[in-house]
């Protein structure tokens, strides 16, 4: 069977770059294959996808050697415009992938560019809108869509011409877990029902490995592994632990083989060995939910009297109520108290009010009702670290001691925009932490687009910060990251806390707000899960 994508000995260097981004890369993707491209940040994943879409070298320039053939078209002779008929592309940022004003026009745009007659354009738009479940959005303005909707529309535009291959560069990095999972399921449907070959670059491998036929790992621009998911996980266990999924780490620590590609596979293996405690069922949700029920007026009065004796919190709010100009309430009487040195994860779906709460705690906005209390300055780090970069040199952005604290002292003369994603995040943290030491630090979705190693580094820094007495509050969708750094989780829904308790209680009891290990064995981390499995093994051996 002829390959839909053939990469032969490609070495590519961006114009002005000192080192190549791709080194002698060769791979083949067969029609209908689902290939995941993995690797740490800056390993060449995006460049490989851009080479397959023709943007490298036609759009980016640079030095290109080797050959890329997409659907029979050689990228040396055909540019991205020609290749778009064979390969649809989707990148990270939904905002820059929308060109026209309405969804219908956006979906029609690629078809019109290919010279399709009006009837074919209309049919193509209808088909792709139905396939992706966005028919209700067709006449909506693209400026009114949420990030998830925008990404879906961009995927629709990439698929409108029914390409044989779809190339996706971390398409879920800007999405919340629900929207991200939905996107991956859509890809699986496309792959299974229409035979579209999928090449997906992704950091959160646990989200997509169960759907993949193969995993291609890049390191330093070269292919270091090209294998089915289970073999890849075995390889990662020995050679690249940062790429292991939590499920694979759980199995490795429990001494089980083979590593599972997903939750279903892991549970099946454990069930087969009699190691799955299915009779116990999931831990109850009620205790944590009950803990945040609104107290009565009398209870609140008593609590107020008691509070006079208790020391002030590092950061908190009482009865915080926030309404939008249109009247919609975003936060509804939120009470929160974060002690000095405490590490708290703030979780909830998109629109639950997490960012709004952080913006009010950070003093960026004034509430409609209620008040914010802080024992000192509150450092607030918003979602995009690039927004903080205003100067020409790293050293001009933050004081030297703050740069040293985040490990950037040696990069003072670099331009901030030349730093990697993880380094920019650390620089933004140094910017907000600079000056007087803060009593609390609030971070809004700091792990977007980060690889596992960078997340681990950030978790270490947050723990060190808390150890120095600073209260840490982080809004995140990433249950694995929350498990890595937090002691306590506050779960928001519809503008009010619905759960507030120790992380082991909150993140092991749900379907959605749960780590992968919790969904497999009901334990928070792979280490705890492995311990649980070992105990069960011991029980079986010595009844």
């Amino acid at each position, binding site marked *: 069977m002829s390959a839909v994508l053939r990469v032969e000995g490609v070495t590519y260097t961006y114009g002005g770059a000192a080192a190549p981004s791709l080194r002698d890369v060769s791979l083949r993707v067969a029609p209908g294959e689902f290939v995941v491209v993995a690797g740490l940040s800056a390993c060449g994943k995006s460049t490989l996808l851009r080479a397959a879409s023709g943007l490298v070298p*036609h759009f980016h320039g640079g030095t290109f050697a080797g050959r890329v053939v997409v659907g029979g078209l050689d990228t040396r002779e055909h540019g991205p415009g020609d290749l778009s008929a064979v390969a649809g592309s989707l990148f990270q940022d939904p905002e820059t992938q929308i060109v026209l004003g309405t969804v219908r026009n956006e979906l029609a745009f690629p078809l019109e*560019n*290919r*010279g399709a007659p009006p009837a074919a354009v209309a049919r193509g738009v209808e088909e792709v809108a139905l396939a992706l479940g966005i028919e209700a959005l067709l006449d909506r303005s693209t400026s009114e869509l949420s990030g998830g909707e925008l990404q879906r529309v961009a995927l629709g535009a990439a698929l409108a011409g029914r390409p044989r291959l779809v190339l996706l560069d971390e398409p879920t990095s800007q999405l919340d877990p629900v929207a991200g999972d939905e996107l991956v399921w859509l890809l699986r449907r496309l792959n299974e029902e229409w035979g579209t070959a999928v090449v997906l670059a992704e950091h959160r491998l646990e989200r997509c490995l169960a759907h993949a036929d193969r995993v291609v790992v890049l390191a330093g621009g070269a292919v270091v592994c090209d294998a089915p998911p289970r073999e890849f996980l075995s390889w990662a266990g020995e050679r690249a632990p940062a790429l292991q999924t939590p499920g694979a780490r759980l199995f490795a620590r429990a001494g089980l083989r083979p590593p599972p590609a997903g939750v279903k596979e892991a549970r099946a293996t454990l069930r087969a060995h009699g190691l799955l405690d299915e009779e116990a069922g999931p831990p109850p949700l009620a205790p944590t939910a009950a803990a945040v029920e609104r107290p009565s007026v009398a209870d609140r009065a008593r609590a107020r009297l008691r509070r006079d004796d208790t020391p002030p919190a590092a950061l908190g709010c009482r009865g915080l109520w926030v309404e939008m100009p249109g009247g919609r309430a975003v936060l509804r009487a939120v009470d929160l108290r974060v002690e000095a040195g405490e590490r708290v994860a703030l979780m909830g779906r998109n629109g639950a009010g997490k960012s709004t709460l952080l913006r009010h705690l*950070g003093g960026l906005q004034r509430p409609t009702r209620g008040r914010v209390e802080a024992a000192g300055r509150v450092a607030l780090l*918003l979602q995009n670290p690039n927004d903080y970069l*205003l100067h020409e040199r790293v050293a001009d952005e933050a*004081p030297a001691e703050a740069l040293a604290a985040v490990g950037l002292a040696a990069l003072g003369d670099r331009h901030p925009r030349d730093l990697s994603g993880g380094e920019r995040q650390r620089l933004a943290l140094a910017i907000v932490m600079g000056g007087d030491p*803060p009593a609390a630090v609030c971070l809004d979705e700091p792990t977007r687009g980060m690889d596992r190693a960078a997340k681990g580094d950030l978790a270490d820094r947050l723990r060190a910060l808390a150890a120095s007495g600073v209260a840490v509050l982080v809004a995140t969708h990433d249950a694995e990251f929350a498990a890595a750094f937090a002691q306590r989780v506050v779960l928001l829904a519809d503008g009010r806390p619905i759960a507030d308790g120790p992380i082991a209680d909150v993140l092991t009891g749900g379907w959605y707000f749960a780590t992968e290990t919790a969904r497999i064995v009901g334990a928070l981390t792979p280490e705890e899960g492995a311990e649980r499995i070992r105990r069960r093994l011991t029980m079986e051996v010595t009844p």
Partner: protein
Amino acid sequence: MRFRRRASPLHAARASAGGAYCAALAACALALQHPLLLGAVIVAVTGAGIAAGARDELATAAKFSLPLGLLVALVNPLVVRDGLTVFFRLGEIPPFGQVDLTVEALVYGLVLGARVVAVALCCALFVAAVDPDETLRLFRRVSFRSALTAALAVRLMPVLARDSRRMADAAACRPDSGRGSAPGRVAVLRAVATSALDRAVDVAATLEVRGYGARTAVRPAAEPWSRHDVAFAASAVVLVALAAGAAVAGIGTFAAYPALRAPVGPGEAGLAVLIVAVALAPFADRRGIER
């Protein structure tokens, strides 16, 4: 101010018909000087805006164009020496010399100001009710690259506007660390301008992978005309014909200098009524306007 799809006959019309309609109203405002007829054009475009659900957009346009129109009305008597009816003598003002304010110059200034407001309202109606994507598609047939450059610019503006809002928030989060204090608007603006290049590259890359620059020629669409397409195109043609016919027949003549002459007879009154009626007639048929 931006296009928002609404259930109105003007929104339901194709961009070429809607654009022609707005252009015809603007042409009437530019061609007709008689205050009664100019007033009729303003009533017509305001009525069209309300019927199209673009009341807020027209109000915004009026808010910005009224001061400009007023400025024109006030400046004209200062710079024009014509007119016989002096209502105020400012005396010798170097370098203008003797400056006398005349009623004729003031009235002509008001006519010019009203024209500015009328044209601004026509533009606001166009922006609010005519699909920009379809308009770009029309121009693409004339100049493909220019139309896509325009699309890129149009798309980039809201992206940069959102970037600047986020950057201003981020700047507000910076502590005063004694290094020149928190950055000002200029620093934020400079950062937005710097990031504009990156953003433009991202949008341009999207255009490329969506088939921009493909070697296939773009065929013109040949969709059947709807009743609203026909109504607004016909209205545009009749409006232009009325303005041209009035000029040929000498109806609605207006002269400001040396003395005001703006006769109001049955011809002018009838023409004013016709302009409003012809402009608003396409809105009477509200079938098939939901989309």
